[in-house]
C-alpha cells in the first residue's frame, strides 16, 4: 500500500510539520519525523486486517500480507478497495495493489493492480515503465541511456549481462519482484500504548468545533485497537492553547471498548460541559494502556472455569488500570504460628497454601489493640500460642474468645512475652 502524498495528507488533516501555517498553494514542507510516526500509526491501523504488516522504512508505504485473510475479508481487490476507502475517511490518500511478492506489490499499488499468482507477475508487470521501479536516480539514468524503457526489457536480459552492466543489486531486486529469491522482512508489532497529536490548521474557539478532528483521531485509535485485539478503558486528551496552560480531559469508561461511537458519545458529554479558556491550537490524544479485549463478552455460556478465569483477569486488568496494580490481590497463608504473620497477599498466578483452623475468627486486626479485659466476658479459651524466638519475634500468648457489652464476639489474648497485657486481635464477624 502506498501513500504517495503522506506529507500533504498530514497537512490537510491539520498535522503540518511546521508550526507556521504555510501560505496557500505552497506545498507543505515534508517533515520526516511526522511521516514516520504517521506510518507507525497506519501500520497499527492495518493490523486489523492482517497480523503481518511491515514498514519498509525507505519509502512512504506499508506491506500488508493479505492472502491469509482472504476468507475473512474477501479477495484482495475487495480488501484493497475497502482499505483505500476507510483510510480516505481518515484523511489519507492510499493506493493499494497486491501481488505475490512485496516488491511486485509495491509496483502494483500505484496502478491498483491485483496480481493473483506468481506466473502472472512477468506478464502483467512487463509493460511497466522503468521509472516506476524502486531504483536510485543514477541507475534509472543508466538504463535510460542504454535504451531500456520497460521492465520486460530488463527481464529479457540474461542475468550475467545484467550483473555486468548494473552490478549484482539489480538482478537481485528483479528476483525479489518475481519471487525467485525470498524477501524476508521484519514484521511490525503493535504498540502497547497509543498516542497521536494533531495540530489544527485554524484556531478552534468552540468545543463543538473540536468534535470533527477528535472523531477522526478516535476512529484511527479504534482501528489500531481492532488491529491488536485490544481496547481502552481510559483516554487522556490534552487541548493545547497558545500562551495558556493546556486543558486536560480524562475519559474513563465502565468497561473496555474499541467502539469509536461509544468513545465519541462519552467525549461529547464532556465537551458540552467544558469551557475553553483560549482557542485550541493542538489536540493530543493518549491511551497509556491498551487492555486485552474479549469480543464475546455477551455470549450465553460463560460458566466454565476457563471463562471464569478469563473474566477475573479482565476484571483485574480493569481495576488495576484505574486503581493501580496494588489494588487487586489474592490471599494466602504463611507457615507461622503468630496470627499476624500467618498471612500475606498473593498474586493471582501464585498457588495459595494455608493450614485450616476453623475455630479462629473471620477477621484479623492488622495490629493487636490494647484492651481492658474487665470490659469483656470470656466465652472460651485459652489457646496457647508460643513461638518466634528464632527470628527475634519471640512471644507467648493465651487467646480467648470474648464478648463485649453490645454482643460483639471478639478474639483477645493475654501476652506474657515480650510485652505483658491484654490485646484484641480478631473479630468473630
Amino acid at each position: 500500500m502506498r501513500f504517495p502524498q503522506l506529507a500533504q495528507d498530514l497537512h490537510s488533516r491539520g498535522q503540518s510539520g511546521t508550526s507556521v501555517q504555510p501560505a496557500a498553494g505552497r506545498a507543505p514542507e515534508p517533515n520526516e519525523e511526522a511521516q514516520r510516526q504517521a506510518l507507525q500509526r497506519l501500520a497499527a491501523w492495518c493490523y486489523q486486517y492482517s497480523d503481518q504488516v511491515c514498514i519498509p522504512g525507505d519509502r512512504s508505504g506499508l506491506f500488508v500480507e493479505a492472502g491469509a485473510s482472504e476468507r475473512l475479508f474477501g479477495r484482495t481487490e475487495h480488501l484493497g478497495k475497502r482499505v483505500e476507502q476507510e483510510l480516505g475517511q481518515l484523511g489519507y490518500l492510499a493506493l493499494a495493489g497486491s501481488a505475490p511478492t512485496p516488491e511486485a506489490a509495491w509496483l502494483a499499488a500505484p496502478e491498483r493492480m491485483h496480481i493473483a499468482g506468481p506466473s502472472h507477475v512477468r506478464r502483467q508487470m512487463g509493460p511497466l515503465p522503468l521509472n516506476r521501479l524502486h531504483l536510485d536516480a543514477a541507475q534509472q539514468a543508466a538504463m535510460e541511456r542504454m535504451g531500456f524503457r520497460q521492465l520486460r526489457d530488463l527481464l529479457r536480459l540474461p542475468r550475467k549481462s545484467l550483473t555486468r552492466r548494473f552490478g549484482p543489486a539489480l538482478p537481485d531486486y528483479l528476483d525479489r519482484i518475481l519471487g525467485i529469491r525470498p524477501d524476508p522482512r521484519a514484521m511490525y508489532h503493535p504498540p502497547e500504548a497509543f498516542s497521536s497529536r494533531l495540530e489544527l490548521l485554524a484556531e478552534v474557539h468552540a468545543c463543538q468545533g473540536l468534535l470533527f478532528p477528535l472523531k477522526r483521531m478516535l476512529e484511527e485509535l479504534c482501528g489500531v485497537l481492532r488491529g491488536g485485539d485490544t481496547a481502552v478503558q481510559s483516554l487522556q486528551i490534552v487541548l493545547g492553547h497558545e500562551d495558556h496552560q493546556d486543558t486536560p480531559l480524562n475519559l474513563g469508561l465502565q468497561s473496555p471498548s474499541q467502539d469509536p461511537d461509544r468513545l465519541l458519545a462519552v467525549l461529547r458529554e464532556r465537551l458540552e460541559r467544558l469551557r475553553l479558556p483560549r482557542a485550541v491550537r493542538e489536540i493530543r490524544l493518549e491511551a497509556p494502556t491498551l487492555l486485552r479485549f474479549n469480543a464475546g463478552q455477551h455470549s450465553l455460556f460463560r460458566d466454565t472455569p476457563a471463562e471464569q478465569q478469563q473474566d477475573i483477569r479482565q476484571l483485574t486488568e480493569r481495576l488495576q488500570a484505574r486503581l493501580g496494580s496494588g489494588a487487586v490481590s489474592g490471599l494466602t497463608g504463611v507457615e507461622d504460628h503468630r496470627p499476624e504473620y500467618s498471612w500475606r497477599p498473593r498474586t493471582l498466578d501464585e498457588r495459595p497454601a494455608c493450614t485450616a483452623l476453623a475455630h479462629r475468627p473471620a477477621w484479623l486486626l492488622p495490629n493487636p489493640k490494647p484492651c481492658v479485659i474487665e470490659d469483656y466476658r470470656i466465652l472460651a479459651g485459652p489457646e496457647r500460642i508460643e513461638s518466634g524466638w528464632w527470628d527475634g519475634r519471640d512471644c507467648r500468648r493465651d487467646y480467648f474468645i470474648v464478648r463485649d457489652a453490645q454482643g460483639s464476639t471478639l478474639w483477645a489474648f493475654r501476652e506474657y512475652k515480650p510485652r505483658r497485657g491484654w490485646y484484641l486481635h480478631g473479630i468473630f464477624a
Partner: protein
Amino acid sequence: MNSINQLLNATPQLWKGRQASRGQRTLPTGHAHLDRQLPGKGWPRGAMTELMTHKPGMGEFSLLFPALADTGRQGQWVILVDPPWIPYPATLEGHGLLLERLLLVRTGGGKQSLWACEQALRSGRGGAVLAWPERISFSRLRRLQIAAESSSKLAFLFRPENAGRESSPAALRLKLGPGGRNGVRVDILKCRGSRPAEPVTIPHFFSAYGKQQCQTHFHATLTEHNIHTALAGSALSAAGTGPAQPRPKRH
C-alpha cells in the same frame, strides 16, 4: 399486550409481583432454619442482600461461609471489595472457602470503592461480591442492584444497623444481633416476593469450635483469680489441639 411484555422484559429493574412465585434463583445459605424463612430457600442470585449490624462481630461474615464455600467449589469467584480488616486465611480455609477463588480489592474507599464494586458485579457470570460501603445513596444502591442482576451474582452489602430505616432496592435485608449465648439472631426486615418472616436464631460459628478446642468456659465476669484457673486448665485441654504446644504455666 406484546409490547407491554417486551417492555417488561427489557427493564429488569422493574419490580414484578409474580417474580418470586415463578421461582427465584437462589443458593442455599447452609443454615436450614434460615433457608426455611427465605422466599427462595436461600440467598438470592442476581440480587442484592444487605446484612445490617449494630457493631461488627455478630457473625455477619461467617453467616455466608457455607454459601461462599459452595461458590468456590463451583469454580466461581468470591470478590471482597474493601474489607474492613484482614480476612483470616486459616479460618476461611477451615470453613471450606477456596483461597484460590478469593479476590481482594482495595480502593481507598468512597466513590472508587463503589465503582470497583459495580465493576466486580458486572464481570462474568455467577460468583459473589461482598462490600462494606461507608455511605451509599439510594441511586447508587440501585445501580449495584442492576449490576448484580446483569451477571446473576450473589451481592452482599454490610451496612450499619441504622441503614435499616432507609429504603433500599435490595431483594433481601437482614438485621443481625446476638441471640443468646452462642447464637446469632437474624431479623428479616425485607424479602422480595414474600412477607418478612419470624426472626431466626442460628448458632454462631465460634460456638461449634469453641467447645471442642477449648474446654474452659467462663460465665462470670473475669477476675484475676479465675484467669489463672483458666490458664491452669488449658495445659490439659489445649495439648495437641492448638498449633503450638503450650507449656504448663507455673506461678
